[in-house]
């Protein structure tokens, strides 16, 4: 396992915060309208799912 230097709080929460913002956009978009807004909501909520796949597949160490 690669040992890394202690990270700041900002570094630890940068990715989780970005994922939360994408999720929030996804949750709200489909409430506003149909069509493109639905697509936006699928993309937004696909972000956490994609990150899970990425982590399980490519972040094993």
């Amino acid at each position: 396992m690669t040992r890394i230097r202690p990270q700041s709080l900002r570094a630890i929460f940068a990715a989780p915060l970005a994922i939360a913002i994408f999720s929030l956009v996804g949750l709200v978009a489909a409430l506003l309208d149909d069509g493109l807004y639905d697509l936006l909501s699928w993309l937004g909520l696909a972000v956490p799912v994609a990150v899970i796949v990425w982590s399980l597949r490519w972040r094993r160490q």
Partner: protein
Amino acid sequence: MTSRSIRVWYLVHKWTSLVCTAFMLLLCITGLPLIFHDEIDALFEDDLKLADLPAETPLRSLDEAVAAAVAAFPGEQPLYMSFNRDQPVVNVTTGPHVKAVRQQMHLSPIDLRQALVIGQIVDDGIMHIILRLHVDMFAGLPGELFLGFMGFLMFIAIVSGVVVYAPFMRRLRFGAIRVSRSRRVKWIDAHNMLGIVTLLWLSVVGLTGVINTLSKPLVDVWRANELADMVAPYRDKPVPTQLASLEQAVRTAMDAAPGTRPQFVAFPGVRFSSNHHYAVWLRGATPATERLLTPALVDAQTGELTAIRRMPWYMLVLKLSQPLHFGDYGGLPLKILWAVLDIVAIVILGSGLYLWLARRHPVAISA
């Protein structure tokens, strides 16, 4: 953060999780089929096929629809009428009296072109059992409020989980899963990653679920305040025996709020109306406004409009909490994402439980 405060947050995470985990597993598992209840219901609902009639067939009046429903259940009275969005169909709920409980009611779908009852909607299938387990575990309002409290504990578990995530990840890169160490380390990393990634979705679904459990008390507050204000001059009048035309009442309500369509009508005396009015609940015509209901009260004796007033903020919050909890507002792809995230939540709960057990009995689990 001091190691002492980390330990306190960890204890908060452990105990709130332990208390709510069994119930959260129940909710996540029963919630999974409920996400697709429209699709599942459609598989079994073959008895509600509409007759083939010319496209221009005029609609009969709502009063004739009510009469047809009452004729199907003699001795009962109309309580609610709801309007189908896509078909010329209304559903009329009848019951023995205005305070009837759900088990005593009958729901008749009526083809408005012929004013004919076209079947009966009954709540006794497997989906209904799953729904009741999910909503109140067959324990009524106390069951609902209890599950709401469990949902609130889950939210505390999420918040405390985020707090203890930070010290844990100081020397780990985001998303890393250490598979080369023990099974326990692998599952800690997986639990942390899955939890932090689904943080927002799970919080929103959890908190909107909590709000939904408050639906009955909130409607009672609305009745006691807003509705009581709107119908103050009618306070002591009895439920009228001769009702004015419902068709006219709905028209009157729609004229008072242009650009709206009726979602349902509550008859005089029932929970969503006063003793003396048809409450016509109107919804907006656009996707953004269709969930924002506006009740119009029409005097059920004279057919005249008494009052129309927007819902207070807590009723709007309640209305918006429904789609955000159910995930039924963005087509099938959104439902599939909802289901995937729900399964992830089950894995988070299960892995949390495993980590706690493995900690208590390290030898037994690793053997």
